[in-house]
């Protein structure tokens, strides 16, 4: 085996309970190389990183096949500590910093420089005094390497976001044996000028001989900074190419790929009256953590199936949650031309919207309640359905609830032992059907469905998607589907809106080219047109 490469990921495969998420992935990285890793959500990037860091989720679920080779030696780290000792460092997407500590303390966290004192001699090394002077010096050195001028004793709390990122990097390069540094979406939170500076630093680190694995959704960045690029799709390496041979188009196409068995339903709809909008979003801001929407404008035709796509964290999930008033929202929402009060879920429901949440178990269900109650409760609350009067008191009409639940169970093919079964005991797909049944019980004219097929098996996926199409076709319901799975959106939607960085990047027809989808998801589409 040659030792030309610093890190070799050799034919690694990983299975989560029968579901292969990585299939024979091989990546080689030389010292001083910046290697880009791109792929859609769910392509297997995080799993690969978890393997590299010896995270326990990997070993708890049966380990993996293949080898991790560093400097020609098979190492296969079993714990994060092991991989740290091997010289693998990581800069996290979320900052793992302690706000109340100073920059230096954060850099030196758990690797503090200590010196002996009277107590430590008696009570052991845990009682050693911190050598603040030496720590400060090390911290300064690391910061200088990054060209950062901030005071090493400033508390981290209150630093601009960009600086926090640099402190994290400083922490990693302060480790003496650092050989490989992994960046996971490092520029996602940075402003443009900070990002530029950051990329320069990455280059500088590479010149010091550190190998860098760079994961990013921003393709222009990848092109700018990396030497080689690996594209993952569905757990497979679809391409391994030198950056000089690649361009944004090519990568976008490789990422999205033609993984769809072409089942696009031929739309026989007439040209709709263009102006008939059932829902208009103007300048919508939604403050949903991790899925912020920033100044989004979107118009929804009456009776269409609109897909909302985009990469994770870009804000697509925030759109539906904002419309329903579940997260602080500003802007303007017009339903049939009438402004919808913001931040009031009840008003949204009253106006004929229904929502199937992406957080099925957290928000979507009363897990310890029966299927029939889960289906009925929203309509009971909003529409005063299923009620009967008893001495002028609104009583639940259990008979009607039961009957309705039985109808729904039959219609949506909910596999259960009966309407009294607790929803906790249902499989993901059947839970999803219960959520949809509840939304339908509201008789909405718009149903918003977020991530309808997340975490459910293939068979159930098809049933759920078919159901949504059926509702649209037969009942004329306007359906807005938000999904991370582009293939799924393309198979059911009339139009697909792609959200990037909280804004609408563009709207595409489902049969638009892979390149267009890829570019839009990477936020490159608008830029193309300008240049």
């Amino acid at each position: 085996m040659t030792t030309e490469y610093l890190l070799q990921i050799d034919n690694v495969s990983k299975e989560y309970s029968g579901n292969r998420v990585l299939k024979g992935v091989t990546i080689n990285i030389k010292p001083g190389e910046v290697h880009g890793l791109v792929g859609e959500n769910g392509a297997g990037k995080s799993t690969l990183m978890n393997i590299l860091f010896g995270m326990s989720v990997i070993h708890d679920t049966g380990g993996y096949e293949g080898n991790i080779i560093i400097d020609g030696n098979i190492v296969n780290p079993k714990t994060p500590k092991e991989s740290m000792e091997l010289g693998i460092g990581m800069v996290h997407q979320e900052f793992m910093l302690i706000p109340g500590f100073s920059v230096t303390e954060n850099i030196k966290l758990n690797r503090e420089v200590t010196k002996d004192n009277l107590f430590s001699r008696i009570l052991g090394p845990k009682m050693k005094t911190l050598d603040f002077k030496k720590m400060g010096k090390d911290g300064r050195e690391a910061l200088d390497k990054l060209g950062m001028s901030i005071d090493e004793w400033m508390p981290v709390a209150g630093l601009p976001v960009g600086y926090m990122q640099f402190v994290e990097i400083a922490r990693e390069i302060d480790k003496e044996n650092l050989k490989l540094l992994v960046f996971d979406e490092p520029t996602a939170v940075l402003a443009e000028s900070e990002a530029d500076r950051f990329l320069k630093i990455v280059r500088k680190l590479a010149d010091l001989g550190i190998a860098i694995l760079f994961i990013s959704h921003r393709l222009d960045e990848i092109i700018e900074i990396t030497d080689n690029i690996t594209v993952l799709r569905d757990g497979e390496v679809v391409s391994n190419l030198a950056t000089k041979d690649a361009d944004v188009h090519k990568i976008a196409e490789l990422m999205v790929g033609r993984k769809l068995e072409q089942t696009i339903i031929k739309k026989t709809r007439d040209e709709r009256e263009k102006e008939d909008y059932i829902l208009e979003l103007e300048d919508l801001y939604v403050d949903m953590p991790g899925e912020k929407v920033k100044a989004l404008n979107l118009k929804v035709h009456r009776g269409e199936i609109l897909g909302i796509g985009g990469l994770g964290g870009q804000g697509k999930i925030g759109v539906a949650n904002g419309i329903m008033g579940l997260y602080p929202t500003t802007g303007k929402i017009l339903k049939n031309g009438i402004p919808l009060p913001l931040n009031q879920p009840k008003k949204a429901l009253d106006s004929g919207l229904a929502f199937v949440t992406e957080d099925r178990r957290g928000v979507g269900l009363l897990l310890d309640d029966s299927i029939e109650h889960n289906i009925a409760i929203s309509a009971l609350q909003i529409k005063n359905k299923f009620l009967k009067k008893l001495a002028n008191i609104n009583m639940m009409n259990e008979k009607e609830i039961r009957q309705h639940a039985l109808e729904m169970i039959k219609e949506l093919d909910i596999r259960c032992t009966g309407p009294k079964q607790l929803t906790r005991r249902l499989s993901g797909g059947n839970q999803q059907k219960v959520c949809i049944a509840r939304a339908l019980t509201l008789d909405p004219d718009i149903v918003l469905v977020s991530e309808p097929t997340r975490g459910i098996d293939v068979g159930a996926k098809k049933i759920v998607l078919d159901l949504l199409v059926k509702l649209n076709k037969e009942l004329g319901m306007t359906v807005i589907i938000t999904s991370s799975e582009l293939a799924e959106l393309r198979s059911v939607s009339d139009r697909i809106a792609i959200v990037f960085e909280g804004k609408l990047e563009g709207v595409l027809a489902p049969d638009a080219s892979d390149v267009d989808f890829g570019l839009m998801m990477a936020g490159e589409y608008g830029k193309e047109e300008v240049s």
Partner: protein
Amino acid sequence: MEDLKNFIDKVGYPRLIIGGFLLILCILAAVLAIPIPGLLGDILTRVGMNGILVLAMVPAIQAGAGLNFALPLGIVCGLIGALISIEFKLGGFTGFITALLVAIPLSAIAGYFYGQMLNRIKGQEMTVGTYVGFSVVSGMCIFWLLAPFRSPELIWAYGGTGLRVTVSLESTIDKVLNNFLSFSIAGVRVPTGLLAFFALCCFAVWLFGKTKSGAIMNAAGANEKFAIATGINVNQQRILGIVLSTVLAAIGIIVYSQSFGFLQLYNAPLYSAFPAVAAVLIGGASIKKATISHVIIGTFLFQALLVVSLPVINILADGSMSEVIRIIISNGIILYALTRKTGGDLT
């Protein structure tokens, strides 16, 4: 083995342990020839007198505020109601109903403000509730001293202001419910009125769960995020649950006192929440879920344990041992149940 495991899962450890302990005590009681009818009569009376206090836990849990450790808040309202009815020399059912009529609005108001407070400290209801309970009891000590009651039944025998520590109900509402339609069968005295009143309260709470308000309150308590997404005003529902719980506590103490024969003032209500909490948890409730059956099963097990253990252990061991063992077991069960997410599945 599989069946056994299913059985244990269904019944839940708390009920199994207490049930087992109770069974052993019953066998011992029989062996030691302790008169069984007397014990049975005692159990029935104690179930009836404590049941409503245990029932008070249910609305609070259903509304998502956890176990209502601030039970003394409702209890002092109930005591005020009873005191006022005595002050006006009302006895029998008139006195009992007057006490309720005074206590219910008072406790509803107290519950409303307590609910407002709990909405500001979500997630810590039980800790805060415990101390609210303690504080209210202590605060009321001042009230008992200063309250302008005049009836010689209520104030100290030597005159002056301030209420007695224990007020006898003998001339007023003593055992009005216990004696109502009561009868003896095979030596067991059945306090019909008391049990019927307990059953009535249980039925009312059960019926409330079947109303629109009840269903919505349950949903709000079961999953706050779900409730918000369903357009439910969660805070309002929580206040509703707390108010109901506090009102039930007020009713509960009046029923308890008439059976006991005395009103206990000052520090007496200090720990009154704990037996009620233990009982409902033993019954299989958890801090997220409680039903009427949990109340009935729990109250029965807890009170039966109390009644049977006393004579048995008094004979077998030192007199104070029974109390010690009982406290260890009931508090141990509270501790165990609080670490569980769910109780038993048997409903």
